[in-house]
């Protein structure tokens, strides 16, 4: 006596296949590495601050991030990346709360330039990690699942079917997909203009702050002018992005109404068909 025979036959004849895009494992490792780099740099910076609380907080957070990354493995998702960002924000807030002369933000043994280098390099690592997540979600994590014939019977069945399709509208030929590098290049090409526009913004901001420094040599007063004005500029840019969203035409509501009437018609047609068949 056997279990469901037709199920067993199906498993014998068809094999479930999953395409793994070349380079996906490299991307997973890179994702993990950049996470480690970001936390490592920030842990080193907190070590230089000689503040035990801040150092232990970042050490614990770094460990949590590393462990969650390891357990998650290939399951890289944008939503799970929010947790990663959350730890960074929480760590920063806690460091600020515990901040004194020896903390990582106002240390005595690190110069301003050193702090900038540490922070910007961590920021770059985090950003690269985010970008990797994007690429992974876009090209690698797609469910590229299909079935392939395994037994002789199934193979012959497909061969015969394809032969029968020749010279019909459904003539079968393998679909030519674009290569991986073309996909990467396409996405990167789309980011050139935004990068230029944002970098122009950054340069303008830098020029503006240099100008203020030149006019008012006193650091404290000049920063009091620079920072609020940059914040206002940032808010203005985000308002611009939000306003852009409102410009996009909303087309979904109209289509729903049309669909409803179609369903009603289909039901009627089905009823008529059934009547004809049964009579």
């Amino acid at each position, binding site marked *: 006596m056997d*279990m469901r025979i037709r199920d067993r036959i199906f498993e014998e004849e068809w094999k479930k296949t999953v395409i793994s895009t070349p380079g996906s494992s490299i991307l997973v490792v890179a994702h993990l590495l950049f996470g480690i780099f970001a936390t490592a740099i*920030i842990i080193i910076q907190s070590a230089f601050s000689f503040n035990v609380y801040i150092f232990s907080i970042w050490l614990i957070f770094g460990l949590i991030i590393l462990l969650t990354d390891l357990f998650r493995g290939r399951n890289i998702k944008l939503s799970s990346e929010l947790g990663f960002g959350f730890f*960074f924000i929480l760590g920063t807030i806690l460091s600020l709360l515990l901040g004194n002369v020896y903390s990582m933000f106002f240390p005595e043994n690190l110069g301003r330039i050193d702090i900038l280098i540490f922070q910007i390099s961590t920021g770059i690592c985090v950003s690269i990690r985010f970008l990797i997540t994007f690429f992974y979600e876009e090209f690698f994590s797609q469910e590229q699942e299909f079935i392939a014939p395994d037994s002789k019977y199934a193979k012959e069945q497909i061969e015969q079917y394809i032969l029968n399709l020749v010279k019909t509208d459904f003539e079968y030929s393998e*679909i030519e997909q674009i290569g991986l590098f073309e996909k990467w290049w396409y996405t990167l090409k789309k980011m050139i203009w935004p990068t230029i*526009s944002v970098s122009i913004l950054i340069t303008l901001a830098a020029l503006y702050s240099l100008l203020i420094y030149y006019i008012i040599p006193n650091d404290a007063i000049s920063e009091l002018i620079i920072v609020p004005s940059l914040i206002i500029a940032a*808010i203005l840019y985000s308002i611009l992005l939000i306003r852009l969203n409102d410009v996009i035409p909303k087309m979904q509501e109209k289509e729903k109404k049309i669909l409803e009437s179609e369903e009603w018609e289909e039901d009627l047609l089905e009823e008529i068909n059934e009547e004809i068949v049964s009579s």
Partner: protein
Amino acid sequence: MEAAKHFELTKNGKAFILFGSLFIVLGLAIDNYLLVVPGFIFWIVVTSTFISYFQHQNLNLDLKLSVSKTYMRSRGLLAVATEINNSSSKAVRFKITLGISFHFRSIKTPETVYIKLQPNETKKLVWLLLAVRRGSATIGPAEISVGPFQNLFENKRILKEKINIKVLPQRPRVNIPWKTKKELLLKMVHEFAKRVKGRGDEFFALRDYLPGDEVKHIDWYATARHDRLISKEFEDERNLHFLIYLDLGGTMFGPKFEYALSSAVELSSLIRGTNHDLGVIAYSNIVKRFIVPQLGKKELSLMLNLYDLEATGVQSNFINAVKFTKNNQLLHSIAIIFSDLEGDLRKKLQGLHLLQTMGSRVIFVNFSTLDFNILASPGWLLSKSQDMDYSLVIERVFPSLVKDEYKRREKELRKILYSVGGDYIEINGYEDNIILSLYRLMKKYSPTQRLVQEALERWT
């Protein structure tokens, strides 16, 4: 057909705008560039989606979806073609996803592919699909995603057309030769068809000539022998009227029901090309569907009406189905009941006597719970007990109490069937075939037994 445009900033996109701004503002305020740098990256990503939206806003793609057939057998193959035309003056790269319902699996090609279209180019993509489940399946909608970062900003062209496809039950693996089927039918006609005199080709009996009889029917040899006019009588055409009672009750579920349904379809293949007819009454507590008896030539339309039946979860009531039959004057039929012995047995058997009074012959087909339940139970599947002895498995899954109860029920059913002159068939798992079981049953009927029965009928 031009695909509908769909633009939407997703929740992720909105969160990115918010986080980007928050990071930059917060970072600048507390003089922390760790937050400022990712904030800028968020901005760049979101801005690039907006720019790609403005670039492809007016991109029109013509999409056409077609399928090679609209009804098919389960485990059959289907070809789906999508024709895409790029009428713009720019080359575009995009991702196309073909929406298919769970009844199908794609062969060799994934459902999502990335392709490139030159200006004014038309491409035809053909997917081969395998039907893995019966039911009413759909192909569509087809979605084209243009531009990067679709999870932040959906920039899509959607063809909302859905094509309905009827996937009929699977073709049985055991191909029963036509010769066997013919023999079975002949045997059934011989045993079950009601012998009525009338206008037909089959000889029935000789009798005295009566005024009004046709002259050509006079048997001259017999007339010469008896010295009076003797004429021949003919039998009416002997067609079988099959009537399948399909139980949709709560106890018929999962693999058991699927097999009952495919058995019904297989029975319909028995009458293919003949003048016998077959009707189906699917019932639970009331009659859920009635398919009027159709001649063997319309067998396919019968199957088309069967494909989307599903078992209901309520206790079935057989008497209602029989009353329905009586109201519709479906007399003198071969009533084949596809059911089991679970649940309230009285409700399942009430009505057999009524069927007998209507002149029907009853064949009760029991889809044995013992076998099908084992096949469906997780205990059987999980413990990998395929290698074990069958009797051991039955002992383990069904305690002796249950088995005794089952035997008692079977005995009761046999008793009732004996009183109505019915027959009993048991289907034990997928190894058993309804037609072969019927064949075995018909072999049991011997001509001598028939003669005795006829004599008894005359006596009473």
